[in-house]
């Protein structure tokens, strides 16, 4: 294999991986940015998205339907969780949120196991995306190209949302200054549920999109939550651009690291995170100096 085609396809691979990570990272950042809540269950919502996606494809035979149904269901579940449980905890310290969402991860893992079983479930991409194209004579799955495109679309939508809407302005303001959260007051309780739901819904989309690549399995949650936190810690808690940069960085390290040093890929990821934390404890674009 020539070097150039190899490089191009691996870069595309990495970008498609980055798109998936970005779905996770921006959802977590959205929730943290506006609510100051660290959602440990983010990986579990991602996993739920993959399983709901599997069932939707199973019943309707239509992947696109899954892309709509899963985020709505997962987002609604997230919003309900915020309404029913998290709401009890405002005013307690941040660790309470961390532990409750951790408990939720355990519960969701068990419930998913009871409903869908322990076998990993294969999800087929739609026929229009299951082909292979040749890039510089190298075969490359169309589905991964689709992921890159979807990632770019979501990134642009979020960027516009942050720049153009009032809620976006509020989010940017709160991610700059934690004190601003108090300015939210108590009359925006619906906003909290909505934000939590949207964040979880984004994780749900990520889950559906990841399912054709990695199958829906019970191991998804912890791996996803670690990856997500790694990119958000690298990029800086609450910074969207940071989570984008973190996602791309981690994806490239994962793809190229796995290729060249299969035994150390994981270690590289952590090494980058630790280096960033040593140099800039608040993350690349974080607030803490």
């Amino acid at each position, binding site marked *: 294999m020539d070097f150039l085609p190899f490089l191009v396809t691996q870069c595309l691979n990495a970008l498609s991986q980055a798109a998936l990570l970005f779905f996770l990272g921006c959802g977590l950042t959205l929730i943290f940015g506006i609510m100051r809540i660290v959602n440990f269950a983010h990986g579990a919502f991602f996993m739920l998205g993959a399983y709901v996606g599997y069932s939707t494809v199973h019943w309707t035979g239509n992947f696109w339907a899954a892309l709509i149904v899963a985020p709505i269901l997962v987002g609604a579940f997230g919003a309900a969780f915020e309404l029913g449980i998290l709401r009890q905890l405002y005013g*307690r310290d941040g660790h309470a949120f961390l532990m409750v969402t*951790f408990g939720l991860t355990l519960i969701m893992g068990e419930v998913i196991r009871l409903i869908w079983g322990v076998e990993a479930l294969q999800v087929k991409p739609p026929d229009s995306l299951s082909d292979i194209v040749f890039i510089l004579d190298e075969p490359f799955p169309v589905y991964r190209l689709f992921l890159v495109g979807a990632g770019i679309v979501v990134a642009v939508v979020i960027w516009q949302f942050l720049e153009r809407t009032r809620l976006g302005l509020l989010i940017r303001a709160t991610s700059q200054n934690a004190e601003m959260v108090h300015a939210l007051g108590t009359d925006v309780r619906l906003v909290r549920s909505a934000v939590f739901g949207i964040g979880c819904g984004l994780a749900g989309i990520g889950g559906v999109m990841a399912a054709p690549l990695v199958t829906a399995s019970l191991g998804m949650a912890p791996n996803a939550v670690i990856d997500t936190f790694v990119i958000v*810690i690298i990029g800086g808690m609450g910074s969207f651009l940071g989570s984008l940069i973190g996602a791309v960085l981690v994806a490239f390290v994962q793809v190229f690291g796995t290729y060249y040093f299969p035994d150390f890929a994981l270690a590289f990821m952590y090494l980058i995170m630790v280096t960033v934390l*040593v140099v800039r*404890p608040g993350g690349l674009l974080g607030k803490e100096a």
Partner: protein
Amino acid sequence: MRFLIAVAALLALLPFGLPPYAMTLLTEALILGLFAMSLDLMVGYARLISFGHAAAYGFGAYASGNFLLHTSMPLPCAVLLAGLLGGLVAIGVGWVCTQATGVSFSMLTLAYAQLLYAVAFKWTPVTGASDGLAGIPRNPGPFGVTWWSTKAGFYYLTLACLLGTFVFCRELVRSPFGAVLRGIRENEAKTIALGYNTRRYKIAIVAISFGFAGLAGALYAPFAGFANTELLFWLLSGQVLIMVIVGGAGTLIGPVLGAVFFLYMQQQLSSYTDSWALFFGVIFVLFVLFMPEGIWGLILSRFGKKAA
């Protein structure tokens, strides 16, 4: 103190009245109790939430497993040495993890545990990869001393480790060092402003906590006769955190009760349903929501009210 001696005496007398299977269960409960108590030092006293405490436990188990399999080191030496080694390694781990605060700290501990978990699958000569280490013996000491290889003997060894750790930890949390930890828990910025280098205290408590967790793991390997990657898995880190919160963080005794409760419920529930972990998740969430002080915290406040 009188209470402590009474409980210790009661625990010491138990082997004479309990059937063997109950002894096994009790020994496991004490090992888990030691594990949970070690985590309480971080969670309850310095509010450092470790999501990767299984890393220390598994490390201790693999270390003592290797000592016992490949050397003729007597069992108690192997166990203590493994715990010590775990604590020394944790100085480096603590240095890295305390680079961050809050959630990032928790995620770094989880990342460390996942890293060890991945390493354990690859480093076959030391960890036996996915098969784990099997047939870990309870090596005899010099002059044919073997009392710890019997069921009751191993129980006493475990009990001694637990009580020793408890006395040490209780002293620690009441000492000047412990006062600084509570300061970090309540207001770290102020603690720094008072002139404490809080980072060093945090590294120290991580090392001590991981060391005792390593001791617990080091006991588990010869107790079960094996060590595998399950001992490093993140679910175990979660379970031990549940034991601490349910039992009562910041009380040292509470987490041991939490471990006993956990094991008992696991035994009871697993005969009815294989999804006992679901119930645990629910119990855990309910405790965080409605009883953050935990079982022992509740007992203490009840007694306090009666006394008043």
